[in-house]
């Protein structure tokens, strides 16, 4: 007997990527035409681009495969198609090379996904696994997980951290939004945290701002070239782990 195709318990939506570079940027020079002049996009990309807002202090425009947002405080290039991840990475590499005198302060590789959970039980399992509700019984009526952010020590020798945020998707019914923020402070870690007791001084350890400097650009280029695949692999591990919670709890 033929069986109808059954939807899997967890269906991943398209992944999105955002690369963020905080620093002291000059939005006035950013436009699709400038990217084309730097040979970072094609003529077709230029023709298909669409400005959203070009104003003093802000430049926001779409390429056919990416979104560029530039303010005086940061550069953000993003896409919502996994096939375009490398193109976005190369675009940021090209921008950093072309603007080698721009002071930058950090680098973030953000990868996110919306997971569609085809079971209400499975959907609740994810929230309850990450935040058990036992402690909340008697305090809150029907406690539910709204947002969870978990911080992790970098697995390499770089300063920075990895944060994963999980929350109910606002775009999918019974969906879960998962985002990994792979944050690089653009300097080698003096020493990585090896003990949870170090978390008692969380702010000093993790939120140690670095002064923007153009001398950090070669460092950022190397990180983006060499660590990009690892960042994606880590995010995929996270997405798989969260997906499994719907089944295993």
């Amino acid at each position, binding site marked *: 007997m033929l069986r109808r*195709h059954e939807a899997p318990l967890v*269906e*991943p*939506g*398209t992944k999105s990527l955002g690369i*963020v*570079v*905080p620093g002291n940027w000059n939005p006035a020079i950013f436009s699709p035409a400038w990217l084309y002049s730097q*040979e*970072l996009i*094609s*003529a*077709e*990309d230029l023709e298909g681009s669409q400005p*959203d*807002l070009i104003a003093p*202090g*802000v430049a*926001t425009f*779409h390429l056919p495969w990416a*979104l560029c*947002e530039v*303010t005086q*405080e*940061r550069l*953000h290039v*993003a896409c*919502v*198609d*996994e*096939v375009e*991840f*490398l193109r976005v990475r*190369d*675009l940021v590499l*090209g921008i950093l*090379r*072309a603007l*080698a005198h721009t002071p930058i302060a*950090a680098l*973030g590789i*953000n990868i996110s996904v*919306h997971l*569609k959970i085809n079971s209400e039980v499975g959907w609740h399992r994810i929230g309850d696994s990450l935040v058990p509700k036992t402690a909340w019984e008697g305090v809150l009526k029907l406690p539910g997980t709204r947002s969870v952010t978990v911080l992790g020590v970098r697995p390499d020798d770089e300063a920075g*951290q990895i*944060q994963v*945020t999980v*929350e109910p*998707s*606002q*775009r*999918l019914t019974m969906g879960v*939004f998962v*985002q990994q*923020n792979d*944050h690089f402070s653009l300097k080698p870690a003096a020493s990585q945290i090896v003990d949870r007791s170090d978390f008692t001084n969380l*702010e000093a350890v993790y*939120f140690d*701002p670095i002064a923007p400097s153009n001398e950090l650009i070669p460092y950022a280029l190397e990180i983006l070239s060499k660590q990009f*695949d690892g960042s994606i692999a880590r995010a995929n591990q996270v997405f798989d782990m969260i997906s499994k919670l719907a089944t295993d709890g």
Partner: protein
Amino acid sequence: MVELYPNNGVTLTSEQFSVPVSERLPSSSLRAWADRATPASFVDVRTGADRMDLTSTGIEQSETRLVRPEDSHHRRYVGRVQLDNSRIRVTDRFEGVVTQVEDGFFQASLGDSGGDLDLTAEFALDKVSAPDLELVEPGAPFFVIVGRLTLRGGHASTVTSLMFRRLGRLNASDVDFHRERGAKYRSLLGFDDA
């Protein structure tokens, strides 16, 4: 992350607020826009940068914080979640360099990101997308992206895409850097002695 809420604590809906702002811009820029379009006392704007649980590179994309989902660019950008029944999931990737261009095809050396693979391959030029054709010349770097295309109903097939890299124009310091590096390798390999 951006949350807009009037001072009386009632959350604004997108219909009530019509300033074309971005959810991912710093609060200072958002406030400036909000101030121009609405009474300054009416709206507070908060971004992810204001939150201690986000890093300076962290971005919140949850749609509840979208200011104007109906007609902002975010609607086109992130407003629609497509599931895998119409999308490609990347399963593998190779890095290539064009070694020779012939009539109707090109040869390239291919490797994987781990450096464990080294092979030569031929690709028909009609597999290259039109905007990238101008880039096909000896030395041009490209990616071969292999993906799994799953269609509605569960049908699936493997698809391959060639993506030529656009690394930007070389400036004088780039040229100097590569010249120096070339000279170094030349010396290391003993070509100078010969």
